[in-house]
Every structure is written in C-alpha cells, then in structure tokens.
C-alpha cells in the first residue's frame, strides 16, 4: 500500500526541497519505488535540485488539467533506479491545484509506487494545504531557531485539523521531526536552539538531525540530491533518517561538536 509523505515546515528556506530530494533518493536507494512531487507551483525548484530541469516537458499542472498523461510528465532519475520526479509549473500559480485534481493524480500514483513524497511550498495557504491534505506521514523540517519552530508548530496544528485524515476522523497523520542546518558548535555557544528545546516545544518524534553542511549548497547547485554525495555528513544524516523512517533503530548523531580524536577518525573515513 503506497504511502503519501508530505515534507513541510510552514517557514520558507529551512530546507524542504533539499530534504525532499534527499529523502526521496534515500527511499529509492533502499529499493522502494518513489516519486517526489513539487507542489510549489510558480516557484519550481525541485527539478533544479534533482538535476532534471532540462528534461521537463509536461508538469503536474498539465496533468491536473488533463493536458498531459501522468507518465508523460513523470521524469525518471538517471542515477537512481526506482526514483521519479513530477515537476511543477513555473508559469501558473497555486490556484491551479484542486483537491479533486490532486486526488486523482495521487490515486493513480498509488497503483505504481511505494512512496509518494509531496514537497510542500512554504506558508499555510493553498499550495501547502494541497500538499499535506492527502498525507499519511508528515516530515516537519525545522531549523533550530525560534521562528522556524513556531511556524512548524503552526503547520502541525494545520495537519491536525485540515488534513483529510483529520476531516474524516481517521487515525491522525504520523508526524516526524527533521531538524536541519544544525550546527552543534553554535548550539554549544547558545546561538542556536538545542535539539531538546525544539523537541520540548513541538513534542513529536525526532526523525533525524541534519548538520549544517557546505555539501548541501554544493549539491543543490550541481543538481544532485545530497544523499548521493557520499563524502558529506549531511548524506549520512539523511540516510539515517530514511532508515529510521523505515523502522530501523539508528542512533542519533551530529548532535554534539566533534571531538578531536573522533574528528580525525571521521576525516579518514570520509575523505
């Protein structure tokens, strides 16, 4: 049975699209047939980060409007087996999304895929609502700073009241916290919120902590999901998070500044 996952945050710029690309790639690498959909109509970015922007012919909105077939719009990733991207339109806006249209596409994708990952736009308006409405799981992307935490809290409230599961009074959407751009040294100095502070406020299970990493920006710019950059610790953090999502028990890491001895070992291992 296919699962619909929404990657959402409320706030913009916290790493939703990066995390969507990395997470979808991680799921596909584990052998699950995965599709990642860009819900950010008008601000199309996912295809850039996935490195498939030059192969976009039809998009999500075309399929909703019946101007194209679903498999005409789906782009198969060239690097990873089982990974597909459904890009969005850059010329339209969020009003192009309708509940019926989105539902029809998700129902069709459910037949073929194990995981459908919806990359939500920022905000709590139509685009974000459409992205989360059909979700079974929600991954809340949060940065360790107060405004991001508050917006995440808000989006958790929206999930609990406006998702289809909430409206139909079904079992609630399963919530997972992904703390990104975490810098243990700045946390130590008191510049950033601690993992525990964030968990205390949001009170949802922690899926993973992704350390602030130069690899993420580089990966975005060359259009490669960070999960494919074997050298980076962000890659390891996402791989861990995917494993936890699939039910594995993996100890959390990247939460403390690296000690010298460990740091050296670490360098040797990843160099």
């Amino acid at each position, binding site marked *: 049975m296919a699962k619909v996952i929404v990657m959402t945050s409320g706030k913009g710029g916290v790493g939703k699209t990066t995390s969507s690309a990395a997470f979808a790639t991680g799921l596909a690498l584990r052998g699950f047939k995965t599709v990642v959909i860009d819900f950010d109509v008008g601000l199309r970015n996912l295809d850039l980060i996935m490195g498939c922007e030059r192969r976009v012919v039809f998009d999500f909105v075309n399929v909703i409007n019946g101007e194209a077939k679903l498999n005409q719009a789906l782009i198969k990733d060239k690097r990873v087996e089982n990974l597909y991207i459904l890009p969005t339109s850059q010329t339209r806006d969020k009003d192009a999304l309708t509940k019926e249209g989105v539902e029809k596409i998700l129902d069709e994708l459910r037949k073929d895929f194990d995981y459908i990952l919806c990359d939500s736009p920022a905000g709590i308006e139509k685009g974000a609502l459409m992205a989360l409405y059909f979700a079974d799981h929600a991954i809340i992307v949060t940065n360790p700073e107060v405004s991001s935490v*508050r917006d995440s*809290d*808000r989006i*958790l*409230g*929206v999930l609990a*009241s406006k998702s289809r599961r909430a409206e139909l009074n079904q079992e609630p959407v399963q919530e997972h916290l992904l703390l990104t751009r975490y810098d243990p040294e700045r946390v130590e100095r008191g510049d950033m919120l601690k993992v525990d502070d964030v968990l*205390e*406020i949001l*009170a949802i299970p922690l899926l993973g902590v992704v350390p602030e990493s130069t690899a993420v920006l580089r990966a975005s710019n060359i259009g490669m999901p960070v999960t494919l950059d074997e050298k980076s610790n962000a890659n390891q953090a996402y791989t861990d998070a995917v494993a936890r999502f699939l039910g594995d028990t993996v100890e959390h890491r990247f939460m403390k500044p690296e000690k010298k001895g460990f740091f050296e070992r670490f360098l040797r291992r990843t160099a």
Partner: protein
Amino acid sequence: MRSTNQISERDAPFQLRGNSFTVMVLKLMAPDDPSFFPQLLSKIRQAPNFFKNAPVVLDLEDLDEGAGPADFIDFVVTLRQNSLIPVGIQGGTPTQQAAAFEAGLTIMPTGRPSREPERDFQRPAPGRAPTDPLPPRAPMPMAETAAPEFQKTTMIITEPVRSGRQIYAARGDLIVLGPVSAGAELLADGNIHVYSSLRGRALAGISGDTSARIFCHSLEAELVSIAGLYRVSEDLEKTVFKKQVHIYLDDGYLRMDPLA
C-alpha cells in the same frame, strides 16, 4: 464552584470549609401588606415539601426607605412558623440592615456572584438568634428552580494545542492535557486547567465570571486573563515563571500563586 478552605492541622476538632448552596430569595415588595402572609401561605401550600424548612434570603433591594417590615424579629418568627428559615438579607438601607442583623440575619452581598460573605460584623449573640433544631440546608428540588442559567460542560483536549489554534470552551471549563504552544489561544467561560506547559494565551471567565481560575503545570504564557483582567508575559513575575501556578482574581487583582 466549590471553594474549599481546609485547616492544615489534621487533628483539629473542626474543619472550616467554604461551600456554596443554592438558596431561595424572597423578594419583599410590601412586607407590611396585610395580605402578605396569606398570599405567601397559599403559595407554600402548593408545594409544602419543597418549602419545608427551606432557607431563604430576604431581598430588600426594591424596598423604599423605611418600607421594610416594621419589626424584623416578628417578621422572622412568622416566617419560621410557616416553615421558611430566613438566614440573611440582601440589599436594604443601613437602618434595615441593622434591624435585620438584630433579628439574627446575616447581610448577604448583592448581585449574582455567590461569594462567601465575609463581613466584619460580630456574629449575632446566640440568645438573640431564633432557635431552630434543623441546620439550614438546601432541599433537593430547589436546585432545579434556582439552577444556573446554563448546564455546565467541560471540554477536555488530550493532544498538544498548536500555534494558531483557538479553543473555546463555552459555558464551562477547559482542560488541556498536552502542551499549549506560543501563538495558541485558550478561551473558557469557566476555569482553564493545563496539565503541561502553558506557552500560549489563556483567558478564563471570558463571559465575566470573576471566580474563574487558571491552573497550569508550567507558566510560560504570552498572556493570562480572568474576566477581562489580563497580564502579559513581560509582566509575569520571575517567581512564577515556569512554575506550577494557580491564577485567580482577588479583590480585582490578578493573583498568581505557586502550587505547593
């Protein structure tokens, strides 16, 4: 609402408690009218069990100066003979109040809120009080006639209350078991209980109930308010911040006490 005030010493021979009862109010328009008692009696005869030894409060509010019963003691005795037990008065001029006090009646505060009367009066001397073997109590059926104008309801929220959510417990109490996030708002006509951190806003008694209270396990609220009197987070004292706290109105002042 029941306010209990227990004495700390366990082995004390008594216990002092506050409690509220529903009591009938007998509004006096023309107590010296010769038809007063005959008419009252015929009313009592319609439901003798209901009125049997029922405590009543005499309402003098609409009486003119000097229009009260000529002799309060007489009046009280006659009422008792007719199985009503006057316990106090409401309203009236100072002269009337003094006369009623002489007759062994206490002065009840006027208006809706049924607070315990705390007066600096001496209690009437035992000899002067009309004797009666039965303690005043509220007969069962009376609760129905004098019930509050709404049925109290309690709303219980078990999940966290997220930022941006507003919960209103109309006509009753609101109990929240999860944390209340900054940016969330709790509203209740009655009390608010939060058995976790309160980081949002909590407004109790929003329809004007000054006896409403707020209880929380960790006070980190943006704003707390009882019956419109509010305090914002900036003005919270350090002694109650992140503590288990109990918030109530005391003489028009918003008090915050740590829960022991």
